[in-house]
């Protein structure tokens, strides 16, 4: 039984990774999960300089999901490179570094620096709804998507994954723009912009007013977008949005994702990734699937 997948020349022992921002750089969840078993660890977004992020409250719980407006707090490239990359190199798993920025130059700065590090792939977050500048602004306009992708690709030493925002009229347009810009792979979806109001206190729950909706609640939107994008572009897709079980992960794979990420579900059950990996193996056995690659996009 083969569970290995290949994305832009990088081999993954299995298609299960973690979603950026939900797993830090692995150190904390490493106490709960054997990181060696994961297809990859995708780090929290890192910028060229430290970011303070948003004021608190940064999260709110919603029906079957949550809102977050962490605002991409991160220690900045230097500390990240010194501490977090070496930590992950202790494990037999791929390292995908999620990159954020306010301007194209910010992104390029980080991507250039990462060129000297032995990380496996870069995931460029152009879809964070929780920062005023950068983030989602890049991800909602196909011209901007293509331009930033090109700019990043021009300096990147590792394969580049563009992470798309679901807060768009037509996700395939963004996917095509990223592909046209030279993206090696796509990640989708980032969070849907949402809001919660505390009616007793008559105020917003989040200090940032709006936040990004994630978790099982959004899964049907994510599966739809993965399916649409898989049928619109040739580059491989990393699917995410509400995955909490092997069944969920398989929905994305059947819809066209080559790999999947587990995000919010880690908060509900730190062991989710392992259960997904084992559940996929069990499914393959039950259904007599020799190679997981045969499942990718097989529901048309």
């Amino acid at each position: 039984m083969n569970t290995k997948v290949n994305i832009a020349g990088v081999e993954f022992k299995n298609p299960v990774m973690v979603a950026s921002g939900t797993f830090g750089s692995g150190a904390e969840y490493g106490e709960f999960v054997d990181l060696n078993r994961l297809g990859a660890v995708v780090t929290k977004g890192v910028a060229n300089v430290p970011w303070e992020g948003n004021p608190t409250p940064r999260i709110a719980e919603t029906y079957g999901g949550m809102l977050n407006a962490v605002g991409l707090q991160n220690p900045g490239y230097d500390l990240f490179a010194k501490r977090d990359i070496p930590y992950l190199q202790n494990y037999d798993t791929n390292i995908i570094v999620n990159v954020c920025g306010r301007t194209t130059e910010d992104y390029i700065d980080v991507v250039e620096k990462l060129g000297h590090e032995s990380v496996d792939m870069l995931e460029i977050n152009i879809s964070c709804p929780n920062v005023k500048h950068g983030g989602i602004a890049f991800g909602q306009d196909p011209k901007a998507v293509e331009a930033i992708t090109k700019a990043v690709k021009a300096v990147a030493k590792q394969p580049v994954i563009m992470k798309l925002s679901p807060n768009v009229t037509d996700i395939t347009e963004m996917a095509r723009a990223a592909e046209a810009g030279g993206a090696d792979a796509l990640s989708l979806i980032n969070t849907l912009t949402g809001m919660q109001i505390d009616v007793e206190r008559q105020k917003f729950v989040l200090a940032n007013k709006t936040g990004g909706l994630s978790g099982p609640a959004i899964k049907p939107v994510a599966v739809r977008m993965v399916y649409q994008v898989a049928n619109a572009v040739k580059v491989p897709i990393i699917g995410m949005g509400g995955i909490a079980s092997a069944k969920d992960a398989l929905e994305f794979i059947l819809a066209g994702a080559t790999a999947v990420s587990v995000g919010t579900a880690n908060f509900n059950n730190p062991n989710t990734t392992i259960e997904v990996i084992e559940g996929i193996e069990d499914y393959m056995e039950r259904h007599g699937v020799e190679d997981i690659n045969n499942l990718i996009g097989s529901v048309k």
Partner: protein
Amino acid sequence: MREKEKAVVVSQECIGTGIYSMIIKTKAADSAVAGQFVSIYCKDKTKLLPRPISICEIDKENGTIRIVYRVVGGGTEEMSGYKSGDGIELIGPLGNGFMQRENKKAILIGGGIGIPPMVGLAEALKDKAEVQIVAGYRDELFLTKELQENGSLYIATEDGSCGTKGTVIDAIKDKEIQGDVIYACGPTPMLRAIKEYAMGKGIECQLSLEERMACGIGACLACVCKSKDKDAHSNVNNKRICKDGPVFLAEEVEL
């Protein structure tokens, strides 16, 4: 490897209006110290985030912890319905706990639902230092027996129905309570006043903070507080309450 544990409810009772006390048989008891917390998962699957609740008392012999909580929403409402023998999923112990200063005359200050962790702290401290406890209530008292058994207890009530009428600070001033170190847990305005009081007196002050949490283990950066200096981990002026706290030295944090 740590894991989400399927612990068991030993017993539960209602000890005040909307306030419950639950004894849980859990592995967390083995290593827990006063001031740490556990994060409890709801059975209602629409609620994904675990609820952080301070450890009130630790019984290592029986492998149990006690928690005392107020029903404020759906999660605590659900918990209040658990019966002896029910499963209860949790992770813990989490966070750092109080730094127990030996031979330092202690003032433990709890406000409202910040009182429970003071019970466990008083128990742990009483053989190491003189323990004075200031407990602030709106009106209805709870946990006073446990507090009394572990130190000299001073009570403040908002309505003056018991002890000093007013805040815990009013009680400290009123009763002229002196000490070398303050340990406090309660609502932010109270902690702010205590910080100011302690700074004025120039004594050490440990504050247990609260914030909405997702992971509970330091990974998601949901639960930060502002720190005075750049934090070594975050590299910005933010500390993670779940991991670097919940207990901080008053001078480290901005409230």
